[in-house]
């Protein structure tokens, strides 16, 4: 019934598929691929759908299409990594079913083939799929939500059903899961989607003693102290602004946004070793600029007074600050 549509589905990938091992005749290859997809669909749909999804199922093409997009994506990626551009589709499937992909690191976070079937089944309002989704992802989502704000964790009922609706599109199709094609497993994909979903929502009402501000304010500083702090901050800001843009981004990610070196390195697109060297050089440059800033300052006298007032045993302000920058990162790394 759906054979022609299924064969059509492979047409877009014909060019690279024909280069793969064990694929000689196109018609035969399409039949084999379709057979394999059907086998997986039977296997995965069994615990997720009221009836096993087979060829006569009205939504069969939707499921098969999504499965193929997932398998095809990883297969093409694997072929790209292979020296001769060839790899057996079964080998790719075995690997991704074990939760391993072909990007560096290769951790998919689960079996994406199973997850695309779950995604389609949820959109089809399959009851078992909804139960399975809840079993697999409720605790994970709750935990992650708590990292954004503890109130989300304490009051999951406030947002969970809405989130499932947002994903599955029960009340407002299409759901977000329509966009999920299994480039990674659902767990990895869901983290980002949930985070942004919650970010756009108001916080649940606070519960007993929950309304304390996250960062209690410190006692008011006296005027002289505040003036001195303002002077220090201005000097630092002026020196910091003179750093190259890339250095500023790296230092901000590390010291203001609290990322670890490895994480900041990934954001700026370099390996940790390179990021480490850049950081070292940036701190050196910053120290030099700050020293110049202090030396050129017309506020030399106030600066010396402040140094005496705040530091008691004044030593080179620039060196002291850069030492602290070095030390504070080491502490973060340990944590």
């Amino acid at each position, binding site marked *: 019934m759906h054979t022609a549509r299924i064969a059509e589905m492979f047409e877009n990938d014909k060019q690279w598929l024909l280069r793969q091992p064990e694929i000689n005749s196109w018609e035969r290859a399409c039949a084999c691929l379709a057979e394999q997809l059907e086998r997986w669909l039977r296997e995965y749909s069994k615990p997720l759908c009221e009836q096993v999804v087979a060829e006569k199922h009205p939504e069969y093409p939707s499921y098969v299409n999504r499965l193929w997009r997932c398998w095809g994506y990883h297969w093409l990626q694997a072929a790209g990594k292979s020296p001769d551009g060839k790899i057996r589709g079964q080998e790719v499937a075995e690997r991704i079913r074990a939760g391993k992909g072909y*990007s*560096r690191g290769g951790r998919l976070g689960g079996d994406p083939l199973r997850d695309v079937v779950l995604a389609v089944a949820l959109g089809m309002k399959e009851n078992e799929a909804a139960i399975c989704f809840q079993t697999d992802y409720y605790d994970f989502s709750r935990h*992650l939500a708590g*990292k*954004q704000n503890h109130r989300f964790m304490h009051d999951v009922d406030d947002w969970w059903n809405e989130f499932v609706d947002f994903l599955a599109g029960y009340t407002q199709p299409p759901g*977000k899961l329509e*966009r999920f094609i299994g*480039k*990674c497993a659902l767990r*990895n994909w869901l*983290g*980002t*989607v*949930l*985070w*942004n979903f919650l*970010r756009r929502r108001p916080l649940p009402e606070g519960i007993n003693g929950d309304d304390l501000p996250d960062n209690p304010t410190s006692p008011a500083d006296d005027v002289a102290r505040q003036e001195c*702090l303002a002077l*220090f901050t*201005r000097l*630092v*800001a002026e020196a*910091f602004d003179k750093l190259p*843009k*890339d250095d*500023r*981004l790296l230092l*901000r*990610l590390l*010291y*203001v*946004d*609290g*990322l670890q*070196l*490895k*994480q900041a390195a*990934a*954001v700026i697109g*370099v*390996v*940790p*070793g390179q990021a*480490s*060297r850049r*950081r*070292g*050089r940036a701190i050196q440059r910053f120290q030099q600029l700050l020293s110049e800033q202090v030396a050129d300052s017309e506020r030399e006298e106030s600066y010396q007074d402040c140094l005496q007032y*705040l530091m008691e045993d004044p030593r080179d*302000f620039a060196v*002291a*600050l850069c*030492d*602290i920058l*070095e*030390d504070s*990162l*080491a502490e973060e*790394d*340990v944590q």
Partner: protein
Amino acid sequence: MNSPDKDELLLNAFKSAATGQETPDGPHVVDDDEQLISWSLGEIDARRQSELRDHLADCPYCRKELAAMIRAGALKLPPVEAVVPVRRFWHRRNLIWATAAAATLMIGIVWTMSDNGSQRILAMVEKDLGAGNPAAAMDRVETLLDEEELDANTRQKAQGLLEESGYRLARKNLRSGDFQEVLDVEHRTAERGLSFSRLSSLRLQAERGIPAEHALTQSGNLLDYGYELSGQSYNKGAFPTFDETTQRIRKELAEAVKKYPDSLDLRLNYAQLLLEENEYKAAEEQFNTALRLDEKNALAHVGLGLVRYHREQHDDALKSFVEATALDPTSFDAQLNTAICLERIGRSDEAIPYWRKANELTGDTKMKRRIKELLSAVN
């Protein structure tokens, strides 16, 4: 040294100064789930990556949100390809292993330094290592080595610490299965024209994709070869496939062993690889050579025991395993292999103390349960 509140004061001044940015008008990259997921999968091209970085540099809102997502684990880190100049890397390695050996020898030399910041940094590196933070130690020592005007003594000391921190970091990564990270660590030393045999040894393990606990420098027990606790063998079928990469690594290891005949780690790894390839005679030769280098090396005795066990020379295998337990009573592998071997030759009663000891030494709850079941069956 500043007191903590002064440190905090300075750090806060820095944070306030560095935070002082206005958020530009949208659209914001963090609001786009699809783009973020594509970025984390490494799918966006260089131009878009550069645009993203530019936006992040100017947008405190996106930086803050992105950092929060990364810290919470809501967004996976994108892959970053280390730029490894393969040919140069290889030539360098050949050239520099000799110097690496020399550098390693220098670690113990008494170090005197001029009174500058370098001494302080080296002390901090040692502190990081002492605190079990090799990543921070390596970052710090690398920054120091970037200095062009280091005196010879300081440079040698720093290189020694680079080796130590790199080795510890790579070992940690190997244990957690982060093989690419191990390669990155080794690459970081190679980039500087340095190479260290024990780090190369870990790299070779990582290239084979074998976690540390499956390699002899860390471990080696019959369970890895498909032998059950009761001494029966079964086809485990979970060994690495011996493809072109394995052959290349084997060749590389053979050359490395020839070039550095006194490196025990390299030799044990080579022997382990041969053992996995069922080349018992060659493996035995390597383990015996390792024992000539260090007759008290428990791992080499374990390795020799494994070879003998495979050849069904169970009595000889038992001697090797028992020797290993005597040399290193805290070696789980030695205790476990001895117990399995005793079971195999029907001396179950004698195996009991070894099972008990293995049980004490392992933190693996599954293993503990299996040993407990076996012991209760015996009793």
